[in-house]
Every structure is written in structure tokens, then in C-alpha cells.
């Protein structure tokens, strides 16, 4: 059976000039993949508990953040810290970029109900210590904690809406099992990114939310390319074993998956290296997400569909494995 579509040339995959024979049994490694991802996510969760939650950016937690350049020679970060400790203001001071740039990021926690006077107070501390002419306020941002909470609620709402819409679309275009697979793959990427944000101690702010949502979109895109191929091959040959078809689909789309992620990683790396301090964390998490998205569309999306179909689909039959031999 199936001779028409089963010429040996079809089971080859070409990457560049290299020919890879047959079908790579990706589904064999599914439990290994689950364990690997699971341990990263558990590691993230442990870090999460140990740090007492995510590092939240001031967008969500509220606070005052001032980026300043002080053009007085040989200012050290400790001197600036001392200014704030002398003024009994709890401030977190960090350098931005090279130490020789004399640029500092000052973060001050604020209490609920704090208004714009806080910015003036901190600015004046700097002005009084170094002279107004030597202090350049490059940017300042103040978020009242209540406002932060409402931002955070908004971001969660966004994540839920996007996930729900994607699931809905896949149910319409594929079926329920595929939507489970796509959702698991997407949430997997979300959790991996969150785990890495804990490992790297990246503060979660609005730009990070944008990165999370972008990766959700990207990962689903990747997954769908695989699903599309599965659907096509299943349509061509209804009697073939699903595991084999899935492996074949992943193998056939592998070069596309890798090339696409490469081009996007190029751009994300360019943003990381040259895009300036504001976008650094965004780009870093994006790269993590891209890798995770690619990984999940290869090792997660189809296996999850396979497992759920096997467990819940009454029409699921294990078929004869036709051509793995």
C-alpha cells in the first residue's frame, strides 16, 4: 500500500547540502523533553519562591526610577549611594553601560499615595550634591503603586485574552486536540521565559510583557507550520500511524523551523547588542523565547496532541507502523 507517495526520496531531509535520511523519531524523546522543560520550569518556580516572587519593574510595583548622567570626574557608585543613605532615602543605585559614562540608574521605592513631589525630591538631592549644571536627568519615571497594580491586572488580562483567542482559532481550523497541544506549547514558552526572568533576575515590566506576547504569537506560528504538515500528510494517507506521520511532518518542516528562528534570532541579537539599555532585557528574553518556541514546536506541540488523542479520542487506533523499518 501507499506506494504512490512513498518513494524513498520523500523520507529524506536536506539541510544545506547535507542529506538526512528518513524520518527522525522526535516523538520517542517526548518524555525526555517533558522532563527537561519540567526541570527548567520547576527550577524557575523554586527561584520564584526563594526570591519571594518575580522582580517586578516599577510599572507594576510602583516606584521611582531615574536615569542620570553626572559629569563630575571620578564619581563612584558608592558616593551616590551615600547621598541617599544620608538623606534616609532607601535607593537602589546601579551603573548604566560603561562605568566611564558616569550614568546611573536610581530606583526608589514609594508608598501608596505618593505623588509627583517625590521626583522633585530625588532630583533635588542630586542637584544639591553635584550642582545643577553637572547633573543631567536623562529620564525619570514615577508610578504610584495602585496604578502599578492596575497595570499588572491589565497585562494578565492581555495574556489570557491572547491565549483564549489562539485556542479558539485552532479549534476552528484544526480540532480540540490540536488546540490543547498548541496551548501547552505556548504556555510552555511563557513559563520558560518567566523561569529565565527569575534566573537572570530581569524585572518584569511592560516591555517584558510585550516580549512574552510576541513569543506567544511566534511560537504558535511555528507550531501551526508543523500541524499544517501533519494535517496534510494525514489527509494524504489516512491509514498511516499517527506517530510516524507526526515524526515525518516535524522532520520535513525542520529546516524551515530552524532557518526562520535563525533570521529572527539575528534581529533579536542585533537589538540586544546595539539597541541600547532600554531594550536589552526585552531582547534577551526574546532570544530565550525564540529558542524555547522552536524547541516546543519540535518536541512538545505534536507529542502533546499524540498523548491527548491516545488518551481521550475514541477514534484513535494504533495503526501498523508502515515505514520506520
Amino acid at each position, binding site marked *: 500500500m501507499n506506494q504512490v507517495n512513498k518513494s524513498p526520496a520523500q523520507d529524506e531531509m536536506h539541510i544545506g547540502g547535507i542529506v538526512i535520511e528518513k524520518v527522525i523519531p522526535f516523538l520517542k524523546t517526548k518524555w525526555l523533553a517533558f522532563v527537561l522543560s519540567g526541570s527548567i520550569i520547576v527550577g524557575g518556580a523554586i527561584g520564584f519562591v526563594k526570591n519571594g516572587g518575580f522582580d517586578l519593574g516599577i510599572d507594576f510595583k510602583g516606584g521611582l526610577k531615574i536615569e542620570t548622567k553626572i559629569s563630575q570626574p571620578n564619581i563612584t557608585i558608592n558616593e551616590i549611594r551615600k547621598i541617599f543613605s544620608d538623606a534616609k532615602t532607601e535607593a537602589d543605585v546601579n551603573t548604566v553601560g560603561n562605568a566611564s559614562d558616569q550614568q546611573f540608574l536610581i530606583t526608589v521605592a514609594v508608598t501608596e499615595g505618593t505623588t509627583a513631589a517625590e521626583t522633585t525630591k530625588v532630583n533635588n538631592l542630586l542637584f544639591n550634591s553635584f550642582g545643577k549644571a553637572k547633573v543631567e536627568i536623562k529620564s525619570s519615571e514615577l508610578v504610584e503603586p495602585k496604578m502599578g497594580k492596575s497595570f499588572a491586572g491589565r497585562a494578565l488580562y492581555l495574556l489570557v485574552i491572547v491565549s483564549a483567542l489562539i485556542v479558539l482559532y485552532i479549534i476552528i481550523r484544526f480540532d480540540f486536540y490540536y488546540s490543547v497541544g498548541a496551548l501547552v506549547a505556548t504556555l510552555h514558552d511563557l513559563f520558560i521565559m518567566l523561569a529565565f526572568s527569575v534566573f537572570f533576575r530581569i524585572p518584569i515590566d511592560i516591555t517584558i510583557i510585550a516580549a512574552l506576547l510576541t513569543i506567544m504569537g511566534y511560537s504558535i506560528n511555528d507550531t501551526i507550520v508543523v500541524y499544517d504538515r501533519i494535517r496534510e500528510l494525514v489527509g494524504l494517507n489516512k491509514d498511516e500511524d499517527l506517530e510516524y506521520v507526526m515524526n515525518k511532518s516535524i522532520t520535513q518542516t525542520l529546516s524551515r523551523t530552524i532557518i526562520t528562528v535563525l533570521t529572527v534570532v539575528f534581529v*533579536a541579537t542585533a537589538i540586544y547588542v546595539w539597541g541600547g539599555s532600554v531594550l536589552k532585557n526585552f531582547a534577551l528574553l526574546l532570544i530565550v523565547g525564540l529558542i524555547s518556541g522552536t524547541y516546543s514546536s519540535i518536541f512538545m506541540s505534536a507529542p502533546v496532541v499524540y498523548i491527548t488523542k491516545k488518551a481521550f479520542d475514541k477514534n484513535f487506533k494504533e495503526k501498523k507502523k508502515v515505514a520506520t523499518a
Partner: protein
Amino acid sequence: MNKLGKFIFILITVGVSIYFLMPTIQWYFFIPEKDKQILNLSQDQLDVQSSEIKKKVVELKKVRKRSLSLGLDLQGGVNITLQISESELSNQLLQKYEFDQNKVDSIFKEEYASAVDRALEVLRNRMDQFGVSEPSIRKTFDNRISVELPGLDNPQLIKEALAKVGKLEFHIVDEKTMKSLQELNVPMGSGGYVLSGSELPAGYEIPMMGTNGETIRAKGEKIPDTSEWVSYWENDDFGMPKMKGWYVLEKKIELDGTMVKNGRSDSDQYGKPKIDFEMTSEGADIFAEVTAQNINKRLAIVLDNKVKSAPNIRSEISGGRGEITGDFSLEETVFLANVLKAGALPVKLDIVQERVIGPTLGRDSILQSSRALLYGVLAVVLFMIIYYKISGGIAIIGLGFNLLYLVALLAGVSATLTLSGIAGIALTIGMAVDANVIIYERIREEMRRSRGIKHAIHSGFEHASATIWDSNITTLIAAVALYFFGEGTIKGFGLTLTFGIIANMFSSLFISRLIFDWWMDTFNPHKISI
């Protein structure tokens, strides 16, 4: 559609794109900086200009409106989010409805929403009066008000203009009580006000407010029910307001800001700043009556519940003109005059978020992000050409169109380009070649089945387009959700991504396809470079 038809269609899309982009190109490359300055004139300054300049302003504004603008994070400026002070509004309503808590609770939501709308209007008027160029004032989520003021880097005055209620009232000083205080040897400042509020004779105490607003010291019984203590403020040498003492004023509001028609900052004969004002005819009548009845008493000018000055009434003032003098700074008189013209806010606004981006940071961000964009694109271009050779070149041509459409669409809706928007463009480019990659990998596969090049290309495009539609629509869902439900930065990012996906699908499925077909028909190659 035949090939010529498709070609003409592409030409039309390019034409429309260029049409959309024209104002942007004009604005950033052809209009000299000097001309743009006239847009910063305030309404008052503009009124006295020649009709020629007024016409020019109208034209410039048209160009400006239709061009792509830079976000605050790229050009520098101030973004402030304001929120109606709930406690203040609640207090106001409680007083209005005689402390009927249930009544206030039932109408609070409604009153809150209408207060937001009134505040929006007053803020718009104020920004007009202050001559801030292109302010954006709009309602944002949870009934907050977002104000964006591009190009501003010292927001102190503007912040005040935004948050200050600007409630002006005229009260008569309760001279009888003040006199008895003087007789009790209470220390007084020159001009006759009580210096300290803490050590007053029994029966005259000032009610103190606890942190939760409850009165912890009752008003002395010797102060008549029709009078109350109001604090007196002056500016110190640094222009910061400082409390100087207290007045006992009659509670009755003789006149308020709504009866003032016009205000103007001026200076008196010693060069001290003052405010001239003009009243409505109703206000003028009341003012004449009040001054006639209260000769030799003081008229306290109270702004936002603080006494600013209390001049003595020497004679009846008719004609509805007056001046407010006091220890004002020039900024303050300008502020007050503008506030008088624009009207008072219904209730105090709290600044709940404030973002100031200095001009140098904006410039750095433009430089850095365009550099990242350039290098990212370069890497993608090189990769595509090395990996797919001529076909890669076709993908790059498609990418060029993609960028043109993307920027044109953004300009077409007069979008604001932000830092995250540029990141969005960069990512779009990375993802844009994905459609081409799907097609090319498919063509390569089809070619291995050795069905002839034309057939391989045809079926490669056919099979790939279903995949491309599916995968792009899901990304589109995420992008559109970002645009509609997101706020600020995320919104811009979502818009760029949305347009990027649309432009991308058109460029890869339509334009690249056409180039391929043309290549096949014209050269009829036996092998394609893919």
C-alpha cells in the same frame, strides 16, 4: 488577473504608499526647523500674528497631522497619568448632600465619570492656554487621564497646571474675630494675620485634621458658625509655597472663578507680578455690591483653599475690573491668569504616573534602535542571499516592499513611532522572511520529487500559502489583541506588528510570486537558484 494587471496593481499600491508617506517626508526633510517653531505659539500669541502666518500654521498643522510622529521615548517629553482624587470627590459630595453617605455611595460612580469628563475639558483648555505644542490628552483605562507633552523637559509648571484645581474664591475677612484675637495679644504678622495656629487662646482653636480626615480638635466656640480658619501662604525665596499663618474668613463665597471672564499676567509699578482680571457682567454687579458693603474690611483672595492675599477694600469697585496682588512669582501669575481663563477642575487630580524622557536619551534611542534595525536587516539579507541565492534576492525585494508598505500604513493612520515600535519593525523583518522560507523549503521539496521547475514552484506556492495564512492569522490575533487591549507602549508595538504581518503576507504571496512567474516565463530556466 494576468501579469500586467498584477503589475499595475502593485504599482498602484506603491503609489498609494508614497502618497501616505509624502507628509512624513515633507515634515522631516523639507520643512525647516524655524518654520516648525511657529506651531509652538499659544493661542494668544497667535491671535496677534498676520493672517499670512495664521494660514501657514493651518497648513503646517495639516502636514503634521498626516505624518508619522515620534513617540515621547524617541523625541523626549513628559507623559503624565492623572486620577481623580476619590477622597476629595467623596468629601465634596458628602458636603453637598449633607453627609448622607448612602446617597453619596449611590451616585458616586456617576459623579466620578462626569468629573473625569469635565476634568478632560478643563485640561484641554489649560494646555491651549499654556501654548504646549501638540499635547495629547485622553481618557485611558480605569477612568484615568493620560497627558502626553512632547518636547518638554522641565515639567514642574505643567505638572502644577495639570493637578491644581485652580478654584478661586473671594471671602470677606471676619474682622470682628480678628480684632478680638489681636486684643488677646495673639502674635500677628504685618498685614494682620495670626502667625501660629498652635497656641491660640481657648475657644479659638483651629480644627486639626487627623490622617484619616477626621477632626481631632474642635473649632473653638468663640469663632462664629459663619466663619472659619483658612491658612495663608506665601512663596519663599526659592519660589516654593510656604505657610505663613492664618486668617479667620467668613464662610460665604462672595464671588468665585466662574464669574471671572479673563485674566492676564501683568506687573505693578514696582515690577512685581500681579494678575489683572475682568468679570462677567453678573460678576461685576456682585463685586460692586460686595465692595460697597464692606468698605474698610479686607477681601481675601483664596486659591485652592489657601489665602493668597487679603487687600483692604477702600471704596466700591465697579466696572468689573480688578487685580490680584500678593507675593506672586511671575510663573504663578501666568499660571493663575491661564487658570482663570480655562476654568477650575471639578476636583483635585493626583499624578499617579509620570515619565520624563530627556532629549538626549531620545536621540540616543533613535540612534541605537536604527543601528540595531540596520544590522539586523543586514544579517537577514546576507543570510537569505547566501542560503537561497537568487531566490533569496527575490525574498529581499519582497522585504523591501514589505518595509515600504509597513511604514506607509503607519504613516497612513498617523501612528506614533516609539522605541518598542521600532523593535516591532525589526522583529517583523526577521519574521517576514519566514513566509519566503516556508515557500522555498516547499519548492525545494517539490523539486526533489522531480516534477519540473514550473510545477514545483506552482505547487510550492500553493501548499505554502495555506500554511502561511494559518500561521500568520494566529500571530495577527496576538498582534491585534495587543493593539486593542494594550496601552501606550504595547499598543504601538501591536500596531506595528499587525501592519507588519499584513504587509508581509501581501509581499510574499503576491509580489514574490509575481517575480517568480516573470522569471520563469522570461528566462525559462532549467534549474532555479534556490
